[in-house]
């Protein structure tokens, strides 16, 4: 097995701060929205923690954005412009997750430092990181101080529209956490991807 340096330090810091932060945001979000069912802490505490962690994650997002904007690792988020290749690779990846993996076939995608995401991951992370996460941060900031951002909220369509978008994305990210954690376990060894996100190095099969 060879090792490649696939997750630089800023990415690892961003990832784990983001992971922990999102878990806290989801739990406090549940506490806030479902105070009659989930009461891990008081409503007021949940709001304060939710707001504080939200701002920490916005700053953390800027770490991620800055790293990829100012290094050549941005290639991991480059979209595949060859549509035929993209769909072929996506189909191959779907067939692997839905069939090949049960037969012990190897993962058709071979990660490199500059192309670490497979076709499905690539599209998913582009949408999540460039569209959904910023929208979630933006709506969260609007909801943090409704009077200060009254004009933006009205442009958005009203407080209820902003809140509904925030909740819909909260639901998406809640589901995403489970699936993301499971997919991270689908490697040559169950904890290989987790270790790679701690050490930075991923073991890859030399034959491939």
């Amino acid at each position: 097995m060879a090792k490649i340096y696939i997750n630089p330090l800023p990415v690892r810091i961003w990832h784990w701060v983001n992971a922990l932060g999102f878990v806290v945001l989801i739990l406090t979000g549940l506490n806030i929205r479902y105070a009659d069912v989930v009461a891990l802490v008081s409503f007021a505490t949940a709001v304060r923690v939710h707001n504080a962690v939200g701002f920490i994650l916005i700053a953390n997002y800027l770490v991620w954005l800055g790293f990829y904007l100012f290094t050549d690792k941005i290639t991991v988020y480059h979209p595949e412009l060859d549509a035929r290749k993209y769909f072929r690779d996506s189909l191959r990846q779907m067939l692997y997750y839905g069939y090949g993996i049960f037969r012990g076939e190897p993962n058709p995608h071979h990660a490199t430092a500059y192309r670490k995401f497979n076709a499905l991951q690539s599209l998913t992370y582009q949408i999540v990181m460039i569209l959904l996460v910023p929208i979630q941060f933006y709506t969260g900031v609007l909801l943090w101080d409704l009077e200060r951002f009254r004009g933006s909220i009205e442009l958005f369509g009203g407080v209820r529209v902003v809140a509904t978008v925030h909740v819909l994305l909260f639901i998406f990210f809640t589901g995403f956490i489970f699936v993301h954690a499971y997919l991270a376990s689908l490697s040559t060894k169950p904890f290989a991807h987790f270790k790679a996100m701690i050490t930075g190095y991923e073991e890859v099969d030399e034959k491939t």
Partner: protein
Amino acid sequence: MRLAALLGLCLLAAATPAAASDECLACHGQQGLTKTFAGGETLSLHVDGAAFARSVHAPVGCAACHAQIDLKTHPAKTREFTTPRAYAIAAVEACRGCHEPIYDAWLGSMHGKARDKASGLQGPICADCHQPHAVTRASVGTRLKDTCLTCHASAPEAHAAWLPNSKRHLAVVACAACHAPEAKRKVDLRFYDASGKSEVAGGYGELQPGQPLDEKSLWALMQGASGKVRLVGRIEVASADQAHAMADSGQALKECTTCHRKGAEAFQNVTVSVVGPDGKRVHYEAQKEVLSAPTSVDSVRGFYAIGGTRVGALDVLLLLVLVGGMAAPFFHFVLRRLLRPKAPNGKDLH
């Protein structure tokens, strides 16, 4: 007995109030008319006739409240009160004549009790909050909140210290909704322009009294407005007498989940209101579901209380995502374990 007498007086005054008021306003409508009390303080006796005509007291006329005045001897030579304040305190009895339940609630409130304290602190009386000659319904505008802030000027800062989104709370929650903790609360939805800044008196369809508005009717009404108006909600106290039962600040509601939870009492009683051409607010009953139906995302864009008015369909979606998010990996994992290829020696290949 006294109530019956005063009620009779009100009715008597109401018989020809306009003519009687005109007679009074012939003098009191003039600027500069004043009275100097024995203590040396001066009270303006000027009454803005136009403001009085728009007030809720216009129909009962001057004599309903100023029953002690005898036109034959008016203005009296004797000085019954030494200060304008003493006169205003005595005038509370006139308010009581028609507003007995409110008077009782006020008397038991921190405002009413403050008046009787031996410390000499003079608690607010009716005329301190309600301009007696220009009184309109409390539900019109934000005047009443502004009145509270004239004495409680530090309230915005005090709320900001502990209440998230305190400015929005102060804007859309009536002071009494939290500071009269025993009061029954309700949501009143009002039509605002698209910027959400100013209440509008038109631009939406006809509201019909009778059957409470359901979510479909309200949605259809707002569709007809083509986005030019927006429904903005306020949390208010359901009755005027309860609104006067202000408790000490230590007893005010501070528990967020009083409102921020499903089934909260405040969201069980909903009205849609408009200000008519006469300046009076007219309320139309609405079903409580207008706040939590999926259509509310569009029709009630300007009102949302986290938890309290949440849309049930989103709860179902979250549940499905939670179940699916856990079930899909679980079944995929189980299938992998069941179907994993074995080496000839029976061990897992990977």
